[in-house]
């Protein structure tokens, strides 16, 4: 009897406590909309940014991680030691970290993850991140020793990427549909074509996040995105697809607009091996025929920063080279005439779906027409773009935003779709990889920016802006996007 009564009293107490807690705490769930649905949920085997947006730091964590300001801080590795010659990294892992399925995260898991990424048959989309890794040794359960073939100044940065997160051998088979990581949120449910739900991980090693559940909703149509936001069906939109609608959100006290920077260098990619683009004078003429500000105003409604090379303006090593390819029609015409195309020529302009490409493409086609170049617009879907442009290299011009952070290294890959081949640049990248001192690195990066700008490899347009929209009460959303991520651990409600 007393036992029974005790039980009743305690359950009543528990109830009132939870009611009180419910009143004291703000809303603990959030619905965040994104434009693209991820193809699956394994960040270590696909390049799709949407995967990282959902799982990066939420479900999966790496040895190091990016913060919202782009800095790299310790993740699952509490600290590390770097040998004097810069080739051996000894990581000390956090104690007591478990995966969502209850298994512990230890040095074996780190070895498994890195070996998997460097393996011959690795499906990792960013193999270059792991290229220098020679061996990964387990010293004890909480210590891992990574030996590099040569010093790599960006190794800790590389380990922060979504492609380098730590996965467990026990749950690797189901990772694409049921990802099991160490993060503050565990995978809940995926309603294909609609949404993915994540739930708070009660056994998380770090600070408890303010949110209990988070739902990612996929809305690809810009009109539907506007309607969903206005009707308050979603609490935030990660990167709003229609920049023209932002002034309306700004004017509405229910919402706030977060305009930040992304790592997306938006460029007029040029097939450097296809005549007449193999002639540097033709590429230079293209560069001078483009009026960047008109594209930013016309396609992005003013959101975006002009760039003159393949480098993000917010990076400390950035060099402003926009003057190198200033809008100058006379010069462009003269260069074309010099190259033997006084009457212009015909080419193709492949445009993937985002509005920066479709609208920007219409503007660029009109601008190229001014110097006699007829660019036939071919609108393509992403799958078609990947097949014919990216893999097939069957294009003249295309517009795309390269959203990976610090990706100037792609210019050292002659087989990459725009097919730029320069031994000078390849040497420069090799030097960069073996340099660790920050000032030295910045100098080399500056040279690299100048080299591709002077070679007019591609038409450099603008740095894509991140256009976040959220209800006024949502706090902690990343304003900038140093990598594709929606970091739920920082988000809370203030109402």
């Amino acid at each position, binding site marked *: 009897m007393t036992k029974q009564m005790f039980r009743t009293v305690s359950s009543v107490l528990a109830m009132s406590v939870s009611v009180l807690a419910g009143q004291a705490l703000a809303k603990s769930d959030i619905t965040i909309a994104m434009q693209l649905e991820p193809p699956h949920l394994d960040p270590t085997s696909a390049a799709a940014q949407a995967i990282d947006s959902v799982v990066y730091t939420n479900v999966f964590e790496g040895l190091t991680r990016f913060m919202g300001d782009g800095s790299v801080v310790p993740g699952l590795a509490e600290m590390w030691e770097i040998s004097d010659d810069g080739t051996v990294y000894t990581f000390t892992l956090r104690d007591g970290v478990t995966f969502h399925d209850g298994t512990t995260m230890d040095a074996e898991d780190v070895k498994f993850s890195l070996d998997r990424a460097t393996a011959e048959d690795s499906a990792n989309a960013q193999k270059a991140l792991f290229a220098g890794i020679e061996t990964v040794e387990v010293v004890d359960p909480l210590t891992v020793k990574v030996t590099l073939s040569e010093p790599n100044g960006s190794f800790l940065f590389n380990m922060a990427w979504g492609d380098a997160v730590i996965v467990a051998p026990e749950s690797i088979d189901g990772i694409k549909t049921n990802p099991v990581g160490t993060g503050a949120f565990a995978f809940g449910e995926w309603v294909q074509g609609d949404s993915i739900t994540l739930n708070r991980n009660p056994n998380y090693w770090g600070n408890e996040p303010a949110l209990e559940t988070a739902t990612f909703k996929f809305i690809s149509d*810009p*009109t539907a995105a*506007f309607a969903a936001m206005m009707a308050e069906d979603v609490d935030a939109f990660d990167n709003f697809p*229609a920049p*023209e*609608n932002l*002034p*309306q959100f700004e004017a509405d006290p229910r919402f706030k607009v977060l305009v930040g920077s992304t790592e997306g260098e938006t460029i007029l990619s040029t097939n450097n091996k296809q005549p007449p683009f193999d002639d540097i004078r033709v590429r230079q003429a293209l560069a001078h025929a483009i009026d960047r500000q*008109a594209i930013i*105003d*016309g396609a992005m409604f003013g959101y975006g920063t002009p760039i003159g090379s393949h480098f993000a303006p917010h990076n400390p090593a950035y060099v402003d080279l926009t003057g190198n390819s200033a809008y100058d029609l006379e010069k462009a015409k003269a260069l074309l005439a010099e190259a033997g195309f006084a009457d212009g020529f015909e080419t193709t302009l492949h445009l993937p779906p985002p509005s920066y490409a479709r*609208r920007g*493409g*219409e*503007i660029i*086609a*009109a*601008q190229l*027409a001014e110097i006699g170049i007829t660019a*036939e*617009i*071919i*609108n393509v879907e992403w799958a078609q773009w990947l097949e014919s442009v990216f893999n097939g290299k069957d294009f003249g011009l295309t517009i795309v935003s390269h959203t990976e952070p610090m990706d100037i290294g792609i210019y050292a890959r002659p087989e990459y779709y725009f097919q730029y081949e320069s031994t000078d640049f390849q040497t420069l990248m090799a030097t960069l990889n073996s340099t660790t001192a920050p000032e030295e690195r910045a100098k080399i990066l500056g040279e690299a920016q100048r080299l591709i700008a002077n070679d007019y490899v591609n038409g450099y347009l603008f740095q894509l802006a991140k256009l976040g929209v959220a209800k006024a009460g949502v706090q902690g959303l990343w304003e900038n996007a140093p990598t594709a991520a929606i970091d739920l651990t920082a988000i809370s409600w203030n109402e």
Partner: protein
Amino acid sequence: MSRNLVLGACLSSLVLLAALVSFVWTPYNYAALNIPDKLQSPNTQHWFGTDHFGRDIFSMIMVGARTSIAVALVAVGIGMALGVPLGLAAAARKGSWLDEVIMRGNDLVFAFPSLVIAILITAVFGAGAVNAIIAIGIFNIPVFARITRGAALSLWEREFILAARVAGKGAARISIEHILPNVANLLIVQGTIQFSLGILAEAGLSYVGLGAQPPTPSWGRMLADAQTMVSFAPHLALIPGFAIIVTVLGLNLLGDGLRDWLDPRIRVARV
């Protein structure tokens, strides 16, 4: 002449006039971008305002009329050129295997939703005005084949055809010399209706991005581009929408009017 006929003829010729004039004159270059002047409401300089690239909408509507009419005209032409002979042949050999093959083939094309065929064709062969014409043309074929066969069948029972046969004329000659002139009225009326449907289909295809490609203006794409801007620049959607309404309404009224005017029974009643 009925009021419908006059009104329909007026609206249709207005659109036709705009399209024809656009060959020699438009207020502005329809493809010229002028981004600082973007999103203007209708005013004295730009009668229909400007779009998100600062292009003059009046000029775009005029050239868009050209695109619509060209696509619909050629598409109806394809439908007539192929559908009418098929219908005549099927009627001349009524009940034969030829009749069966033609009519079941027609049923097959008819059973497909027309816009789906169009999307299929443009998806396989690429988007563009030419493929849109072919796509719309194909689903016009069975319409004309059926209407021709239906009308021709009853004519084949008439005495004057019998007389022609007695005179030794072959089926092909009878079809051309006697049947075709007698179904022409019907074909003109149906052609007008199909023309308006062709304009709608072209607008639909351009709306989903499968019609004429930029920078060629097309009403359907203007609507699609306006979609996200309706809330602050409604004229972007209203103007091309209104252009489509005027054209389709005009052609439908014209078709109705022509039917009344050309129908001998009604003509007799009127007299």
